[in-house]
């Protein structure tokens, strides 16, 4: 039975201990993948396509192979044929032919930067110079990068064997449209007929990248015993293991993946890029091989989030009740099928109780790098659309933007367009917190200044996690878990274990295991770690306590187990004797076997994280530049285990959203190659571009977790572009329909509107 300790008063949860890996991270000792050094290690370099679309006619690697210092050169010809198999990777399925083709191009290159060959040599410079000697003959093909263009019948075709899957039915002709999804609820015609106000707009958003500061890196060592050892920057060592094994067509058990410390992922370090390559180079050279991507490679050849076209229509009564919603969404998938359109469809109206809705979504291949998840994938785009339409309706009927959201907020029992009914959720509480906040109550004065709000939602998943707990002779414990730690999660897991056992966070030594040492654990993503792996840590703690009750009964008190009571603070009592966890553990250590506990969990329900943001901006009409004056992020965390790190997730996601809103985008040359594959012109916010980001954590407990935890990591990136767009409208009267709302675009729109006025 799951019961909170002490009516919600916690000893450890809600405190702010220093993270366990802290000293290593501030002294430079923490080992990230590019820091790994192995004896005899070679360095690898990848040759990439210079064109956006083409057939590979021939590849001549002979000059590279004979260059002094080069130990191996590979192309897709050196990789096994994986066939047309679909593998389940936990957070989604993947077609292995596409995965393998993205790792090393087979018959076609589908985007500029697509990997074509790889060289392993004694140092990076020798590898790079040798790679330049590889001669690739391409037949260049016309290319397409705008999603609507790619949907046309006469668009250049990326995959000749790809047919549109429209809810099970396959199209007759091949197409760049991989999938068409359709969701509906209620009766849309009836719905709109009831509306007094209907607003409809078209929106466009550019491709943006997760922008993690650590480029992808992997080290592979094909060991003499036939096992492939991989060290890599990954959000999921088990999925990396599986993908690598599948691409190389070797048994999964022959691959062991060690997740090194990782410099950011945000969804972009789940698919493998380098692991199979370093594996194969190591096999052929007989030496360990390390490859680290260049920053340009990261932008051109990993997984940005989809660019999109969205047409969204929203209808309401004159009292502000939202009644009907319709969305037509086209998201680009990049070079291979399987983009983020699904979550986009599910999230477009997810914050509101709308009785009638229809959503059509299209996943479309274009000659851009293959899209991957980026923090709440697909949700930010649709929020940009819907949240502005909500504001527009509010404005037209003279209703406050907060009130209209409070009136229509999703709550327990609301049914989403894709079917699920919400359990208790915290959007209303977040809106109430916004209403109570200093920010909302403060006056914003001055010309060309405006305030905007927006709501956002992300599912937060469960999936599988394992944990093992061993006890030391002094009653401190070791927690072995499988969730790669991108942001300090090992400490929030240690804290949950400490809470249940009645010890301190420092009494727990958390460790992230490799794929040989800990049970299968799904990716660090989906806002799941503090929730699901936390549940595993908690459950392992309970397993430990159960064992200790039984052993205390036998070895200490000579009684039956049901005469031993486990108190809510972790003490074990029998009659009038009481022992703390540490006392009993030390005692049991002396007399009997060591204590080892374990848990494997797979919670099914999402954690449903809602948030609302408030932004104040000032617009410079002469330049179109937007300055963010003040920003507050409010989100339901269920229970904030370590408040500093929950605040950090809120602030970090918010700032990524601000960058997405104001300046980040992929620019393309006329030949569809990326023009800004560097941090110089891919403009992520610097600290000079931002104010402090204030946070308010709402705690509307999640009934599916012993401490009420909800996932928090992804929701913060969803509202910012919409909040800023609403603020810009409030400041200038202009409604922005494209992302980013960069200075030249805003300036031009203000110019055009003032000329027309």
């Amino acid at each position, binding site marked *: 039975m799951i019961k909170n300790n002490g009516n919600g008063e916690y000893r450890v949860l809600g405190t702010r201990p220093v993270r366990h890996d802290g000293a290593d991270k501030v002294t430079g000792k923490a080992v990230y993948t590019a820091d790994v050094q192995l004896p005899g290690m070679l360095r690898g370099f990848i040759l990439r396509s210079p064109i956006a679309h083409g057939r590979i006619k021939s590849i001549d690697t002979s000059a590279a192979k004979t260059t002094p210092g080069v130990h191996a050169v590979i192309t897709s010809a050196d990789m096994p044929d994986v066939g047309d198999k679909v593998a389940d990777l936990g957070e989604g399925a993947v077609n292995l032919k596409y995965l393998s083709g993205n790792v090393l191009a087979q018959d076609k290159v589908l985007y500029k930067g697509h990997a074509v060959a790889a060289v392993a040599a004694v140092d990076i*410079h020798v590898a*790079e*110079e040798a790679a330049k000697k590889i001669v690739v003959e391409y037949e260049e093909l016309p290319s397409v990068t705008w999603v609507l263009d790619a949907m046309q019948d006469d668009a250049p075709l990326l995959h000749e064997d790809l047919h549109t899957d429209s809810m099970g039915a396959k199209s007759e002709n091949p197409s760049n449209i991989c999938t068409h999804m359709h969701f509906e609820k209620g009766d849309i015609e009836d719905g709109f007929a009831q509306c007094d106000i209907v607003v409809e707009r078209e929106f466009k958003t550019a491709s943006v990248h997760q922008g993690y500061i650590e480029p992808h890196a992997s080290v592979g060592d094909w060991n003499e015993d036939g096992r492939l050892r991989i060290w890599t920057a990954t959000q999921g060592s088990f999925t990396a293991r599986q993908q690598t094994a599948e691409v190389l067509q070797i048994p999964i058990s022959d691959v062991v993946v060690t997740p090194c410390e990782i410099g950011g992922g945000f969804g972009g370090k789940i698919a493998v890029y380098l692991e199979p390559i370093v594996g194969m180079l190591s096999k052929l050279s007989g030496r360990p091989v390390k490859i680290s991507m260049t920053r340009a490679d990261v932008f051109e050849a990993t997984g940005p989030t989809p660019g999109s076209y969205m047409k969204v229509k929203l209808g309401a009564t004159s009292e502000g009740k939202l009644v009907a919603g319709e969305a037509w969404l086209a998201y680009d998938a990049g070079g291979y099928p399987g983009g983020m359109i699904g979550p986009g469809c599910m999230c477009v109206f997810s914050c509101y109780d709308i009785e009638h809705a229809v959503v059509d979504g299209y996943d479309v291949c274009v000659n851009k790098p293959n899209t991957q998840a980026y923090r709440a994938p697909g949700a930010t785009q649709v929020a940009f659309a819907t949240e502005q339409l909500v504001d527009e309706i509010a404005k037209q009927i003279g209703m406050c933007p907060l009130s209209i959201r409070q009136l229509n907020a999703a709550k327990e029992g609301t049914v989403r367009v894709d079917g699920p009914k919400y359990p208790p959720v915290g959007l209303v509480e977040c809106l109430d917190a916004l209403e109570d906040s200093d920010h909302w109550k403060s006056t914003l004065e001055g010309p060309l200044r405006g305030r905007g709000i927006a709501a956002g939602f992300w599912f937060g998943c469960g999936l599988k996690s394992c944990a093992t707990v061993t006890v030391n002779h002094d009653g401190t414990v070791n927690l072995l878990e499988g969730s790669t730690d991108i942001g300090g999660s090992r400490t929030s897991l240690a804290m949950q274990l400490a809470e249940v056992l009645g010890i301190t966070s420092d009494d727990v030594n958390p460790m992230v295991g490799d794929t040989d040492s800990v049970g299968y654990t799904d990716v660090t993503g989906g806002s799941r770690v503090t929730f699901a792996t936390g549940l595993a840590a908690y459950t392992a703690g309970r397993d430990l306590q159960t064992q200790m009750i039984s052993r205390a009964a036998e070895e200490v008190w000579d009684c039956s187990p049901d005469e031993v009571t486990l108190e809510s603070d972790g003490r074990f009592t029998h009659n009038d004797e009481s022992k703390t966890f540490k006392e009993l553990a030390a005692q049991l250590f002396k007399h009997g076997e060591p204590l080892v506990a374990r848990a494997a969990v797979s919670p099914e329900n999402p954690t449903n994280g809602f948030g609302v943001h408030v932004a104040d901006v000032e617009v410079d009409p*002469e*330049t*179109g*530049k937007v300055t963010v004056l003040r920003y507050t992020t409010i989100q339901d965390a269920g229970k904030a285990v370590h408040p500093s790190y929950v605040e950090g997730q809120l602030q970090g996601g918010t700032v990524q959203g601000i960058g997405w809103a*104001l*300046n980040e985008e992929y*620019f393309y040359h006329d030949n569809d190659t990326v*023009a*800004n594959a560097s*941090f*110089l*012109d891919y*403009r992520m*916010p*610097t600290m*000079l*571009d931002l104010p402090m980001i204030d946070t308010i954590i709402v705690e509307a407990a999640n009934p599916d977790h012993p401490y009420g935890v909800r996932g928090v990591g992804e929701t913060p990136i969803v509202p910012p572009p919409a909040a800023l767009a609403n603020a810009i409208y409030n400041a200038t009267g202009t409604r922005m329909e494209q992302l980013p709302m*960069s*200075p*030249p675009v805003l*300036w*031009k729109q203000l110019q055009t509107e003032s000329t027309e006025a």
Partner: protein
Amino acid sequence: MKPFDYASPSTIQEATALLEQHGDNAKVLAGGTDIIVQLREGLRDAEIVIDVKKIPELTALDLCSENGLTLGASTPCCDVYETPDVAAAYPALADSAHIVGGWQIQSRASVGGNLCNSSPAADTIPSLIAHNATCLIEGPSGSREVAAQDFCTAPGRNVLEAGELLVTLKLPAVSDSESSAYERFIPRNEMDIAVAGAASWIKLGDEGNIAAARIALSAVAATPQFAQEASEFLVGKAPTEENFAQAGELAKSVASPIDDMRGTVEYRVNLVGVLVKRTLATALARIQKDG
């Protein structure tokens, strides 16, 4: 990166001899913040890199009330803005030096290097032009001087001949009745290449009108531009908002920008007017504050 050789001469003569010997295969290394990136990306080539930072003349920073500023070609930007007298006398140059990249770049990048890299968007060149700087060049056939506004000839190209080395920049002495400012427009607040930039220098006469003015622009033409018509317009005029705005309009005539991912033609031309107006106002405010 393709391998290259490295030399670090300690005199001008040694440096020019090496430059003459290697011709196009040699590249000068001052702060390295442009050239190392270019060599790494294959935009420029070198068989030998000649580090000039050991040559005393190239790291000079001398301010003299009569002769003005002698700035060594490889003196880092941070020295310019961290030396209070220099920053006060040549505020536009300090403005420029303080926004080239971030602090880490400014610790190494030099004004001379920025000039020799000859990017149309270089931040320090308009300030040099506005202050009527002179470039002292040494080469196999001796020394010569070139006005800063004549130094760049095309994107990435300048007047340096084979074997020649930029040694120092000289800026004229200043008085209390003059000041300057540089401002660029970038989408973020730091770390971007200028979409457009303007430097303005004005000197007031005894009666409070503008006695002299020099306005220069970056990122809106193939080379940094001296806006002669706009500058001459201001002479004899009162330093008012209207006149500054008018100067901004006139400055647009030397702008012939391109459309690229940093801005459209129309947007950049608009920015010229805005930035010229703003830098003139800042320069005036600085004179009034100090005077």
